């Protein structure tokens, strides 16, 4: 599971519908990668503006594995104490680390094949929902 992608047209449509239904005139959301502004206009089409502060998406654009919820970040496989070196190639199903909440571990999967280039959080720190944890350069 990944954080909500606010540039996804489906998400925008959903939010717009929710705003219209609730009678709210608009909203503005900022995140590290960009900004979304929805203004619900009465009697005419809604105006939607998504701007990205990041590089335009291309095939080589690194993909960020984000925290699915708040928890303590554990890198590698805790049960095997693997000190994996970076960069290294990973497959989509590889478990890169875990989010620990009490005795529970939420596996963090690569989600796509590529080169794992960076680990963006320090081991055993508390991370929040959507915080970037790993960066992967996708390979076709």
């Amino acid at each position, binding site marked *: *599971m990944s954080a*909500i992608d606010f540039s996804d047209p489906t998400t925008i449509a959903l939010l717009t519908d929710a705003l219209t239904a609730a009678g709210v005139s608009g909203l503005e959301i900022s995140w590290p990668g960009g900004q979304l502004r929805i203004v619900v206009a009465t009697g005419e089409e809604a105006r939607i503006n998504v701007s990205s502060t990041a590089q335009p998406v291309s095939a080589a654009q690194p993909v960020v594995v984000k925290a*699915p*919820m708040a928890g303590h970040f554990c890198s590698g*496989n*805790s*049960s095997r104490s693997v000190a994996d070196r970076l960069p290294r190639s990973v497959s989509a*199903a590889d*478990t890169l680390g*875990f989010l*620990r*909440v*009490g*005795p*529970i*571990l*939420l*596996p*963090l*999967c690569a989600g796509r094949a590529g080169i794992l280039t960076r680990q963006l959080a320090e081991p055993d720190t508390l991370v929040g*929902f959507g915080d970037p944890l790993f960066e992967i350069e996708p390979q076709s």
Partner: protein
Amino acid sequence: MIEILETGPFNTVQDLGRPGYRDIGVSASGAMDPFAVRIGNILVGNDEVAAGIEVQTFPFSLRFDRRTVFAVTGADGDPMLDALKLLPWCAYTAEAGQVLELKHPPTLARAYVSVGGGLDVPSVMGSRSTSLRGSFGGNAGRPLVKGDRLALGNSADFAPVPANGLAVIEPAVALRDVFPDFVDGTLPVRALPGGEHALFPDDGDAFWSQTWKISSRSDRTGYRLSGEPIKPTTSIEMRSHGIVPGVIQVPPGGEPIVQMSDANTAGGYPKIAGVIECDLWRLGQARIGSRIRFVRSTHAEARAIEQAVARYVEDVRTTSEMIKRALKAMA
């Protein structure tokens, strides 16, 4: 349904056992590592008493014929789903047709497969455990064989298992302060002096101070230990009396027997000690040929360990439910 594709001998359906009928000669049965069964069941959203499969001979494989939540707990080693390596102590969702395979674990003895809804075999005297000695319970009272098909109960779970799985810090790691690690390859097993402890010389020193080996004549009924024979100072004739899992008897040969899950319900050998209930799962994970040493414990210590285990189990239950609910709400 799940279908057994490959199995060794003596793999059975087990739950937490059938206590309460020893007076009429019915062994309690149940998993040799009940801790693993409880955690596996919680991970897949079951009541902790749901029945799963105890795998003690490998390789073992089964096929799911519908989408099923499952977890493999207990033994170490990575289960495989089709060609994909999974984590142990982690709940996943298998799709219809996928095959789960368990290879021989690197160090431990028994793996447990828990499935969402539990195995829907008939409950006999309050349990779905297989009684191999009585040939009842579980899957027609016998070990699983290739081609067996087992029905699954309906899962009452409210929230799905996260797409990447839901794992737990396994008991041996989470409770490492409570369950001491191997010392020079020897598993410390805590025990209390038994009814006839006083019959053995030097306060049972020969029993407590030596390292015992789990002999090949060991199974779910009991572990026969190999070592320097121990003898009571006087030989006594005793009537058979009730015994339970954990009781350590000393037969005339002097090599102790530890009663395990399929324990006899009565016996007449002198009892030198009894393994505390909370350490039985570790003995259940000890392989034939491995070494153990008994550590003299107290009732207070046994109680403290029980409380630590209860806290951990409760923590796993509430936290896993909270996480599943949170992820469902954000999905």
